[in-house]
Each structure stands twice: as C-alpha cells, then as structure tokens.
C-alpha cells in the first residue's frame, strides 16, 4: 500500500479526524456521531456477527457478478474487435448501456425480478461493470502492436500460441486497469442495489441503519466499505499491476 500511505495523507486524515471530533462535540449524535460512538457501533456489529455475515453476502454477490462481467466484457471485446459487422451493430448498444444511470437499472430490476435478494444486486453489478471491462479491453485490442503478431506468424507460430503469448500479455495492462475501475463500480453498485432492493448484505444494513436513524451504524458500515475498497485498490490490484508490468520500463 506504498502509494497510499503517504505523509501528507496521514496529516490530512488527522485533520479530518480532529474536525470530526470537534464537530461531533457540538452536535447531536443523530446528526454527527463522535469517533468513539462510531467505534462503539463498529464493535457492536462486529461482535454480533452481522458484520462478517453481511460482508460475506455482499462480497459473494460482487464476486459472482463481477466475474461474469469480466468474462462477458472480454468475450464481447474480442468478438467486436474481430468482426466489424458485430462492432457496427453492438458498439452503440454498449455505449447506451454504459450511459444509462444505475438508478434506472435498479428500478427495472425491481420490476423484473422483484425484491430478489441475489438477482437484483447481481444484475446491477453486471450491467454497470461489464461495459467498463469491455471498453478497456477493446481499446487494448485496437492499440495492440501488430508488428509482433506479424513477426510471430512469420516464424510459423501456431495461432493458439500467438493468442496466449502475444495477445494476452499485450492486453494484461489494459485488463488490470479495467479490473480496477470496474471493481469500484461493482462494489458501489452492489451496496446500492442492496440498499434499494434486498433484505441482506451491507447495503441492506445501511438502509436499516438509515431508517432507524442510527447514524453511528451508518458511519460504521461506511468505514467498512471504504476500508475494503482501499484494500482491493491499493493492495490487491497494486500487486497485480506490479506483476503484469514487471517487464516495463519506468
């Protein structure tokens, strides 16, 4: 997490905490709970087991839908790159899907699937993150160095090896950046869908805390969400980025 933990950031964080604590002292905890109250709420949900249970539910939904979006986005990108008729037919459709606000998708999902615990979040995550994966991979394919492919063909390299040893490594940087952007979308969509139309998961817990005016819990859940997002973005994906660009000059 070396890119994340910087001195200026720590200073900023301390300032935010100081302002928070100072603000909370003068306000009702319904409006702004103190750091201590938030910590207490965090402890409660952790001890009661709701934290782990809800986290795992949201995590499972995200992983399933995100995985499907990655596979579908890649296949679509490859197909549209390969066949120009498909490209001319479906490219605008993907742009339309991408520019439709998530709230419309979630409303439609509720109409189509009802308050389906798993289906609505999975649908939303998929529809929001698939175009992100598609666009990145498609662009990676368009920018691919065709000289290397020509070289490989000239040296009688079988098609499968060209795919595995040239296409794939060429696309890895684009793929990692797609994974990173799409994960942020997926994680947020998951919580959003659960908030609106589910009876489990972190989003649902947020919605409950909200309707019960338990602002300290709202803050506690928010901290969990942020911490997990940071862990994925600055640790997991950072490791992956380092691995795929080890041959790069920087």
């Amino acid at each position, binding site marked *: 997490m070396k890119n994340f933990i910087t001195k200026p950031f720590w200073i900023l964080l301390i300032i935010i905490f100081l302002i928070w604590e100072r603000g909370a002292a003068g306000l009702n905890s319904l409006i702004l709970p103190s750091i201590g109250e938030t910590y207490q709420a965090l402890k409660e949900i952790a001890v009661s087991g709701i934290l782990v249970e809800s986290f795992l539910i949201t995590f499972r939904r995200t992983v399933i839908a995100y995985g499907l979006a990655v596979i579908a986005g890649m296949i679509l990108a490859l197909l549209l790159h390969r066949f120009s008729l498909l490209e001319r037919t479906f490219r605008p459709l993907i742009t339309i899907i991408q520019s439709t606000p998530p709230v419309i998708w979630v409303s439609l999902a509720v109409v189509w699937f009802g308050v389906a615990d798993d289906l609505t979040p999975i649908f939303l995550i998929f529809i929001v993150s698939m175009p992100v994966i598609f666009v990145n991979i498609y662009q990676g394919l368009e920018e691919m160095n065709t*000289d*290397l492919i*020509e*070289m*490989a063909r*000239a*040296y*009688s*390299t*079988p098609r499968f*090896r060209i795919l595995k*040893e*040239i296409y794939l*490594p060429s696309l890895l940087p684009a793929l990692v950046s797609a994974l990173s952007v799409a994960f942020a979308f997926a994680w947020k969509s998951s919580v959003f869908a659960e908030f609106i139309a589910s009876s489990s998961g972190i989003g649902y817990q947020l919605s409950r805390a909200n309707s019960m005016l338990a602002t300290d819990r709202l803050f506690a859940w928010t901290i969990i969400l942020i911490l997990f997002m940071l862990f994925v973005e600055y640790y997991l994906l950072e490791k992956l980025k380092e691995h795929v660009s080890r*041959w*790069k*000059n920087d």
Partner: protein
Amino acid sequence: MTEANRILELKNINKSFQSLKVLQDLNLEIKKGEICCLLGPSGSGKTTLFRIASGLEKADSGQIIKNNKLRFAYVFQSPRLLPWKTAAENLIFVQENYGLEKEAELRNLLFELSGLAQFKNAYPHELSGGMQERLELIRAFAVKPDLVFLDEPFKSLDMKTRVNLRKLISVIQAETGITIFLITHDPEEALLLADRIYILAAEAEGIKKEIKVEQPRDSRKIADPELYQELENIMEIFTNLVSDIEYVREDIRKLF
C-alpha cells in the same frame, strides 16, 4: 542457374499502394548459400520488396518461386522483440515452433558470439538499442534457417556495432552456408558483405544493375582499387537516381 542452386526467384513483380507504383516488373533471384544484397536509396521500395519476397505481403502481380519446405527467418528494420519475455525467452519463443535439436546449445553459442551472454535474462527494455538489434539478429539464426531476410539491420547503429555485426553475419554464413538476403541503403556495407548486389532504381524502374563481388569476404577492403571503383560506380548510379536539382539554382538564389 539450375533449379537446385536457386533458393528464391521473383519474376515480374508489381506492387502499388493506391496510385503510387512502388515496384514494376521486378526480377531477381537468390542463389543457395550466397549473401545477396538489395541496394537502393530510401524510398526505392526496398522494404516492400523484402515483405513480398519473404511472404509477409502479397504482390499485385508476378511470380515468387520458392520452396515452401525451406525455413525462413527475419530481421526486421526495427527489432520486434516480445517486451514481456527475456532475451533467452525471445529466442525460445521462435525456436519452439520448429522442434530443433540442441536448441539450448545453439542459443548459448549465439549469445556467446553476439556478446550478449550476460544478458540472457534481461528484458528488451533493459538492453541498449544496439543490443536489441543483436538479439533480433541472433533470433533469426536460432531457428537454423535456410534463408535469412535482413531489412536494414544496421540502420541505426554506430560504426563499431555495425562492424561487429557484419563480422558476425559473415562468420555464421561462412560456417553454415545459410543464404542471406540483405537489404541496405549503404553501398559500402553491400560491397563488404555481399556476393551479389542488385541495385534497385528509384521510381519503380526495376533493378538498375547487378554486381558480382568475387573477392573473398574476409580480405575485402573498401580501399582496394577494384572495390573502390565499384563504389564509385554505385555512387554514380545513386547520384543519377536522385532527381536532378540543377534547374532550380536560379530559384534558390532568388529566394534565399
């Protein structure tokens, strides 16, 4: 020339890009075991010919006679190395397509000969431009080819690296008898390395001249009267190829 002696023949090759005619009725043949050189000024269609002869591009018309059982290797104008593979892996990548015997030994020998032995595990971006060119060159020989196409392999190299690479090619060729088709714009290089030189005329006029260099390669020196005369002849052809600008003298004087 007998059939067995000929490794590649191009007959009446024509090629245009849109309305620009690049090659017109071009004929040339490459004999087995020789270093054949195609010499021409920039823009004379050398690379197009390289691509057509090596099968990377199709001619508009004409005939290419070659034995498809032969193994070709390529040295591109700017190195085409896989950036995510180390130097050794780049060689393995092409070697694996042919199931060669003693692959690793051949690789080691080529690394040794090219002075890259210490850099086997380096990625291309960790190598200098000259080293990358050397790697590109030894990759071609690593597949035990019958014919190597070299497209201006020394274009961006300094004098020392050039001389070394020339020597490397010359030695490998002498010991193995591998046929080499070298494309260059440098008359000196052509005279020092080639057994036969085709001079490509500008503006799609085909082959302007064919020169045979009989002297043993090892003892060639450009200061040698015979070679020097050839160099003069080539330079004269080149000078004539470049369009005559005498007629604009007046304009130049006026405008400057």
